């Protein structure tokens, strides 16, 4: 199993009364909450942490894209990835990713990802998320009804652009270009591995299965809550006649490791409560937009009582620390406890790529490094050989 260090880059100084005094952490968050000095220092600290993750043996380091957001300070993950490509030498530079429909023309993504792949000498993982409703429809005002066809067409254009041997014309529904001829082309040939972060839509499962892209079940609610999503994905993989290679899947998981279970219970409470009860204070009206979810997924949602209950639970923002732990939102404990839980999760869900989130909420730099180091030293070695009998054709050619 490949283990990757995933940073959301949360703003660490949201006020204690954020939940009650502010409308939403996303879309219309008050810009006065952000102190420029804190912001600048936070970027430095977080980038250093990502570099440190490589030193601790992580196979990849991950960044992602959010807009108008108080817990994700990367509207342009490519800027961060460019720094990481320069400051690291072995870890996969994992951008999860660029919301293709937000780029006009989307060939811009082909160009910037190719640059990152060159900077890193073939260590890029190219992630193409649809993007959340908060990012795309509400913050960038993309029409939700056309977001997905724009997204699929954009990826199609990018893949053609990366693999074409000469300039060509592209006449799509949303994009028309006389000369598609990006310079540069990627280091990896025919193209960097493509991962598709998703939130559980049926179409995305089919899209990944049909195209042999990795499906990234990016959840904040841990492996237990993502079971239904992952089961749906594997069912579609089988329906497409594809093998069950665990490397077809990536899953995110908040993790807190300490010397003992009791110490972990004490250490990670505050940052977890900050994240789940403050950073995730998203106004429910922003979590969807008419047309953002396809008809098939809406129908599936109303038929899934499990998912409805889960959603209502997640929206309440007064989770107790014990609920977070018991429900697996955060896997905490001593090294053996964490390893056992992660191994159980990996075997049950067939997780070939674990995106470990070892900094969350307002976790300070010292604790983040402690967590990262312990995981790298005492947890990762026991997990590394999981699924080693399977090839991983979705891993960058020059990453460790």
């Amino acid at each position: 199993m490949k283990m990757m260090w995933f940073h959301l880059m949360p703003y660490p100084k949201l006020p204690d009364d954020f939940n009650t005094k502010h409308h939403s952490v996303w879309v219309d968050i008050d810009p006065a909450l952000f102190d420029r000095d804190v912001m600048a220092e936070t970027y430095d600290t977080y980038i250093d942490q990502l570099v440190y993750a490589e030193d601790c043996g992580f196979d990849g380091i991950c960044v992602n894209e959010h807009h108008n957001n108080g817990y994700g300070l990367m509207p342009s993950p490519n800027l961060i990835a460019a720094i990481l490509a320069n400051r690291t030498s072995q870890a996969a530079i994992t951008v999860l990713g660029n919301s293709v429909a937000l780029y006009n023309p989307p060939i811009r993504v082909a160009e910037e990802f190719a640059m990152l792949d060159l900077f890193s000498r073939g260590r890029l993982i190219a992630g193409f998320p649809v993007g959340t409703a908060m990012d795309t429809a509400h913050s960038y005002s993309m029409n939700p009804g056309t977001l997905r066809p724009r997204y699929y067409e954009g990826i199609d254009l990018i893949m053609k652009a990366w693999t074409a041997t000469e300039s060509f014309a592209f006449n799509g529904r949303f994009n028309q270009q006389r000369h598609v001829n990006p310079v540069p082309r990627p280091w990896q040939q025919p193209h960097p591995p493509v991962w598709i972060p998703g939130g559980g839509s049926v179409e995305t499962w089919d899209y990944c299965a049909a195209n042999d892209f990795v499906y990234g079940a990016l959840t904040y609610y841990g492996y237990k809550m993502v079971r239904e999503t992952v089961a749906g994905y594997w069912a579609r993989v089988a329906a497409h006649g594809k093998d069950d290679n665990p490397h077809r899947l990536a899953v995110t998981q908040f993790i807190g490791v300490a010397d003992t279970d009791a110490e972990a219970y004490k250490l990670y409470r505050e940052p977890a409560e900050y994240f789940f009860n403050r950073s995730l204070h998203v106004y429910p009206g922003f979590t969807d937009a008419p047309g953002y979810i396809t008809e098939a997924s809406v129908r599936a949602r109303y038929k899934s009582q499990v998912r409805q209950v889960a959603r209502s639970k997640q929206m309440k923002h007064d989770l107790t620390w014990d609920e977070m732990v018991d429900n697996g939102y955060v896997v905490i404990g001593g090294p053996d406890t964490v390893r056992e839980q992660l191994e159980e999760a990996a075997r049950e869900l067939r997780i070939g790529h674990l995106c470990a989130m070892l900094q969350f909420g307002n976790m300070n730099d010292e604790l983040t490094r402690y967590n990262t180091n312990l995981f790298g030293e005492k947890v990762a070695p026991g997990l590394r050989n999981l699924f080693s009998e399977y090839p991983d054709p979705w891993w960058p050619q020059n990453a460790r």
Partner: protein
Amino acid sequence: MTKRLVYLFGIAGHAELSPAMRAVEADGWEIVVPSVPGFDGVAGFQPRDEYLDWLTTFWDSIDATGAVPCPVVGASVGGLFAAELAALRPEAVTGVALLAPFGIADGANPGFNLYGTPGPERMAHLFAKDVPDAFANRFAHLGPEEAPVASYLSDVAAANILWPLGDRGVAKRLHRITAPRLTLWGDLDEVNPVTNAASWGGAEVVAGAGHLLEWDAPDQVSTALITFLDSLDLSSLGR
């Protein structure tokens, strides 16, 4: 002469004729309501790629009725397309009544963010009074699993047209409307504020009415509509 008009419904789709439009009907007008994909909640609806596709969809739906040329009454989203029809196909419209039409927005006062609101809460923001049963239970006959899907599709259609602010550049085409025009607006309209009426050259303001004013203030709206419609020169209809 047959007193016939085309009615283009509003943002929440066509549940049934409003009390105001029933009064117009009682005045002897035949009311033709085109069926428009998406707003009917029928499964399989695909959002349109661009606004021109929506104009084509509405033109096709209107032409399929065989009713035009005739007066056109349009509410909300329907007001947008009624105005477009009058501006771009003036030969099809002998008079146009617009009820809080979308199409021109004011960035300084964009109105209530309807689609930044949880779905079940949206309907209440379209009315100054209680949500009429016709809308509250519009798709109830489809059952508990399919009703919310149909309601969602109707929202998808409207949002696909209006996203993000409801401005479709109509201000640039208003000068082309030569047919007699009546514009009505509810003073309590949350989603398309009455202040937007100025951009349409003014409106008769209906007190105590929200966005779907024909439901909130049926007497005032029907009186204004009947007065306007009966003033039109029906001989020009050729029917």
